[in-house]
């Protein structure tokens, strides 16, 4: 009788310790920042992500996953902070000195991520959403490095030159030179 009473009491204590799940989770307030980037080029990159989880000795079985993703990398020139010192005008020639272009954003959209193949053996579970995201975060780092090694900055400067020349090459300037300085 005493044991039954203790069991019932423990059940009540256990049930009382469970917390209700919070369903309506509030958003935080967004913060706005001013920028002034003239974005002139977008590179579309694609990557295959391969991972093999067989390095933990006590986990019996193996699992592999193959995913693909795309990334959009934008680059451009920052127009904030330009002053009269950046412009040198003669009768019909305008020379503009701009800062060097830089990579502005990297976007790895989720709808371009595909799980192409997954293999699970032994007593292993399939890759969870958190594990897949961790692998994708590693791929994102590799994509950032790869984008930095491409000529996206040079291409951005070329496009910025074409755009600004077409914008400014009207009266009174017949010739517009665009230079880039650090």
């Amino acid at each position, binding site marked *: 009788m005493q044991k039954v009473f203790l069991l019932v009491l423990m059940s009540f204590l256990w049930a009382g310790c469970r917390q209700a799940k919070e369903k309506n989770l509030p*958003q935080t307030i967004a913060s706005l*920042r*001013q920028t002034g980037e003239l974005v002139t080029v977008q590179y*579309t990159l694609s990557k295959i992500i391969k991972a093999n989880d067989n390095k933990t000795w006590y986990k019996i079985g193996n699992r592999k996953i193959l995913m693909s993703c795309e990334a959009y990398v934008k680059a451009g020139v920052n127009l904030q902070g330009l002053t009269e010192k950046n412009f040198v005008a003669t009768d019909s020639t305008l020379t503009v000195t701009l800062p060097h272009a830089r990579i502005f954003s990297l976007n790895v959209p989720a709808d371009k991520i595909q799980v192409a193949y997954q293999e699970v053996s032994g007593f292993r579970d399939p890759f969870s959403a958190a594990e897949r995201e961790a692998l994708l975060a590693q791929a994102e780092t590799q994509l950032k490095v790869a984008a930095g090694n491409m000529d996206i900055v040079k291409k951005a400067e070329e496009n910025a030159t074409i755009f600004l020349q077409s914008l400014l090459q009207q009266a009174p300037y017949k010739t517009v030179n665009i230079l880039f300085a650090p």
Partner: protein
Amino acid sequence: MKQTGRFIILFIFVAAAGWLVWRAVKLPSLKQLLTAKEVSIDETVTVLKNIQSLSQLSTITAYDEIVVDSTAAPSATINPFVSLYHAVDASDAEIVLIGKAITYCGIDLQKLQPQDLYLSQDSVHLTLPAAQILEVALNPSDVEIFSERGVWNNNAMIRLTDKIKYLAAATAMSNGALGQAETEARKILTTFFNAAGYKTVVFEFVR
């Protein structure tokens, strides 16, 4: 008694030798032996698929941290062994995501036509398209899975991240990001043309 003493000395000797070997060879500790190894992806080639020329003036960047959650159909998604030893209501699969989204707002200058720009000796008249949301970025490194129960496939993750991006864009718009983007574009272009020698700069935004 003598044998016990010999045994103790032998044990101390073996323990000391083992400790010296462990220090010298740097064998892994017990914690390291029982910790699961992190899964790393292989180094693969990054392919450049497309190069697109753009002319976007990005003037406002909105940062937002958004929480979304979702529950799914019961029992079929839950490992039956988990439900036995958890002894809780394991009938719902649930996931909670925290996403840090970045919303870029500005003017798409590719929409400019030749007739939208008029430059005279000392004045500029520019008709610009209305500010718009240029892009909402939510990368895998900005997604934190706070809680996960059950099996959530890639399509489910796409729907949840799309929801975060939609909420981020809606929040940016309700905070007046587009109006601020136009104000900033006006400031930047006015400074630009003033510095280029044009005294009067007039803007008009097409709605």
